[in-house]
């Protein structure tokens, strides 16, 4: 029988080793201005002296800083504890999306549209145009591709053009998918991305039957929306708002969500745009900058803006959102929520544009109206600009062939952020992603140079802003951010708790 005497377990001084980490100055007034991040996404804010002590093996064992570094896998004690099982688990959590094939399947049922938006991300064909619709044979083949993915949860999204102009094809695809799913038993969500201008009771009844979600575009108050989105009758805003109302009456309040496209006009009015979303009763807003695709690139001189202007806009918008959320209005910014998940949890949001390896093709596939398959919405927009380099093949090829295409090889070879020049030593890389398609579009090269990368500037700007906010923001700011993280009400997050 062992005695009950207390055994003291001592720590040897200076016996630690370093594990891979990166660091970055946040350029704030806070003394702990250096952000230290581990390969797997743990982080600590430290001051200059601490970073120096860490690298000179000078941290005193047993201090709370020493234990923080140990527990977050910045250092380890070879004779005491092997941290690799934990680090492996953290890698696995953060890269969990790799275990699944493409989950997002976009069906471009037509290019036709009633709008003539200058920035259109997609390009479009006139209302009565022909040869711009997805054929029945191609649609049927695309449904085969959908079920070749091993993802247990699939999203089937209808895009355009204006997909409701080709509603009969939408209906056919939904019915085929639903019938196949009786056997497949996947968790399937249908989404129609639409202006809602062409809604009919028949469409709404069908949507109800298949729990179809609607995703629409709302750019802000009427003058801004209508200026961004011209139609012959100049009533785009009114018709979209009417559509939102009809969807909600038929299918419930949450059956419709909205996305914002920000033109240089929009950047002047963050509050007005947010107020419009509050007025329309939305619980999330997506403040995304203009993409360099579709017509947007050609009319860049009028509509585009340097990403720095966007960052200024974002900061203002986020400040305003934090304020109204504290006053009891729940409205989250969706990209912020995704970044918060990457920062505050061991998991990745899995968002296509924030993945490494890149999500193009591995997370999403686009079945274009012409029967070609693309790795992302953006890649097919390049085609409309006159590039045809990013096709994976035709919809008649099996998924395995499409994913083994030379284009996928190129994208993935330039799609691992941890291995890209300029990203590999960036402290923010665990929370960021790789976007070879954007770099190809902007710089003509899927790797590109970070100095000229608006993807890099945007994500670094937002991440640095959020890291500073998570450190310096008061308790109520933390509460709002945490309420977005798990979509809980602000009042339910009564205390922020340990900031981690």
């Amino acid at each position, binding site marked *: 029988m062992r005695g*009950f005497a207390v*055994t003291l377990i001592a720590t040897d001084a200076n016996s630690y080793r370093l594990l891979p980490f990166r660091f970055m100055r946040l350029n704030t007034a806070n003394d702990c201005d250096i952000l230290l991040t581990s390969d797997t996404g743990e982080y600590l804010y430290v001051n200059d002296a601490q970073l120096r002590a860490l690298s000179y093996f000078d941290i005193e064992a047993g201090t709370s800083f020493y*234990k923080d570094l140990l527990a977050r896998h910045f250092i380890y004690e070879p004779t005491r504890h092997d941290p690799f099982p934990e680090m492996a688990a953290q890698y696995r*959590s953060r890269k969990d999306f790799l275990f699944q094939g493409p989950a997002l399947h976009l069906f471009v049922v037509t290019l036709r549209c009633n709008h003539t938006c200058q920035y259109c991300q997609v390009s479009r064909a006139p209302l009565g145009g022909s040869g711009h619709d997805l054929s029945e044979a191609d649609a049927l083949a695309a449904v085969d591709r959908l079920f070749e993915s091993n993802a247990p949860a699939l999203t089937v999204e209808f895009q355009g053009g204006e997909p409701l102009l080709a509603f009969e094809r939408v209906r056919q695809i939904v019915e085929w998918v639903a019938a196949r799913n009786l056997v497949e038993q996947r968790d399937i969500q249908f989404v129609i991305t639409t202006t809602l201008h062409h809604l009919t009771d028949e469409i709404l009844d069908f949507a109800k039957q298949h729990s179809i979600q609607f995703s629409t575009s709302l750019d802000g108050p009427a003058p801004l929306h209508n200026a961004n989105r011209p139609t012959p009758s100049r009533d785009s805003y009114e018709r979209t708002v009417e559509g939102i109302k009809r969807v909600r009456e038929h299918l419930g309040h949450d059956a419709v969500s909205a996305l914002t496209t920000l033109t240089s006009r929009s950047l002047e009015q963050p509050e007005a745009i947010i107020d419009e979303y509050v007025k329309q009763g939305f619980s999330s807003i997506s403040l995304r900058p203009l993409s360099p695709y579709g017509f947007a690139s050609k009319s860049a001189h009028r509509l585009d803006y340097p990403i720095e202007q966007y960052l200024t806009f974002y900061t203002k918008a986020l400040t305003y959102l934090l304020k109204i959320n504290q006053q009891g209005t729940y409205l989250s910014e969706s990209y912020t929520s995704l970044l918060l998940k990457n920062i505050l*949890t061991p998991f990745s949001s899995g968002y296509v544009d924030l993945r490494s390896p890149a999500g193009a093709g591995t997370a999403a596939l686009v079945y274009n109206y012409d029967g070609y398959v693309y790795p992302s919405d953006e890649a097919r927009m390049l085609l409309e600009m006159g590039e045809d380099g990013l096709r994976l093949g035709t919809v008649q090829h099996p998924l395995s062939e499409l994913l083994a295409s030379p284009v996928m090889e190129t994208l993935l070879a330039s799609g691992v952020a941890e291995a890209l020049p300029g990203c590999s030593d960036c402290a923010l890389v665990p929370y960021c992603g790789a976007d070879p398609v954007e770099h190809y579009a902007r710089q003509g090269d899927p790797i590109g140079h970070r100095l000229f990368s608006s993807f890099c500037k945007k994500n670094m700007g937002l991440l640095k802003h959020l890291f500073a906010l998570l450190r310096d923001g008061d308790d109520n700011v933390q509460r709002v951010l945490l309420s977005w993280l*798990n979509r809980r009400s602000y009042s339910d997050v*009564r205390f922020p708790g340990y900031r981690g």
Partner: protein
Amino acid sequence: MLRKDTHFEIQYLNEPKLLKVITLDEFIEQGVAVCAGATQFNDLLLWLPSEDLERNPHLVSLPVGGFLTPESLTSPFDNGRLHLHSPKNPDVVQPGDVIAITPGNTLVRVLYRRGSDSNLLFMTDRCNSLCLMCSQPPKDIDDRWHIEENLRLIDLMDAGEENLGISGGEPTLYRDGLLEILAKCKTVLPQKSVHVLSNGRLFKDPSWIAALAALGHPQLSWGIPLYADNAVDHDHVVQAPGAFSETVQGLYNLARANQIIEIRVVLSRLTTPRLPELAHYVFRNLPFVRHVALMGIESTGLARKHYEELWIDPLDYQEALSQTAYFLFNRGMPVSIYNLPLCLIPPHLSRFARQSISDWKNLFIDTCQQCAAVKHCSGFFKSHTDRWQSRGVRQLSTEAFSAYARSAQ
């Protein structure tokens, strides 16, 4: 609090026995089917109040294992068969219970109490750790007989859906016995959820993964203690070098076997200073954990010996507790506070507080008698003493309690 043992006068007992107490109605309507598993008539102990005995004396010819009269006998009675009567405390043994008795001893132990959520299969007194606050100090003995007793006990239980605990000592030390017991729980007691308390160290051996996966118990969960986010501090609390590494690897193996895992933290002067950091460690490294229990210390066993090192007034770790509970709650990881009376936590933590102390060792002290919260409070362990009493223990007025009730919603 209802003790789990009392004394009876026992006649004609010539070997150790486990018996199921059964009423006459149950005997007539269900017979041995009142037990969940395989049983015979002589496993049954007929509940026979003296009134019934006097009215129907022929009942004693029924082919059961014996009779139990839950009061003193009014007239002498002797028919040469096993008979328990004249209990010291008549409330302890009730119909449906399973009791253990041994010859030459008047002690009657209740091994299963009908309808209770605190029933326990005790596996062993042995342990491979020696935690400073252990409430049940380990003994280095061969006590494999617990395995057989538990297998028998499972047969005699009701089939109902109460929770069943398995504890020790360290239950995994008897690996084959534990797996056999779990398999039997799955077959005989499919309605009962089973919660095993283990330090998780032996699960470092990956062969457990296949064994647990093959077992496939649908309602099995594991309560594994973790006392720090680093090896030095954890190993000190459990007094076993290398324990942290073993438990962490064990947790991953349990996760690989798709087991349901709860992390248990006993709150003491040693564990509270880095409690929020521990929550962070759990969330970041063990995100598959289903529940975190933050548990007030039980002032018995080895804890008494290490008072100086362990004791901290719960009022002095309220802030750490709050930081920890909300960190986990805000990230969607369920968290509970066990064993702390409501008067020792701020109202905003009452949503996490549970009435966690097993019924047989739960008591309320004099201060509690007029307290408005007493029906909703965890109260104290029966081992509670003044030395381990917080300066914050007090009566809550109806008004004060309403703040707790509001917060709990």
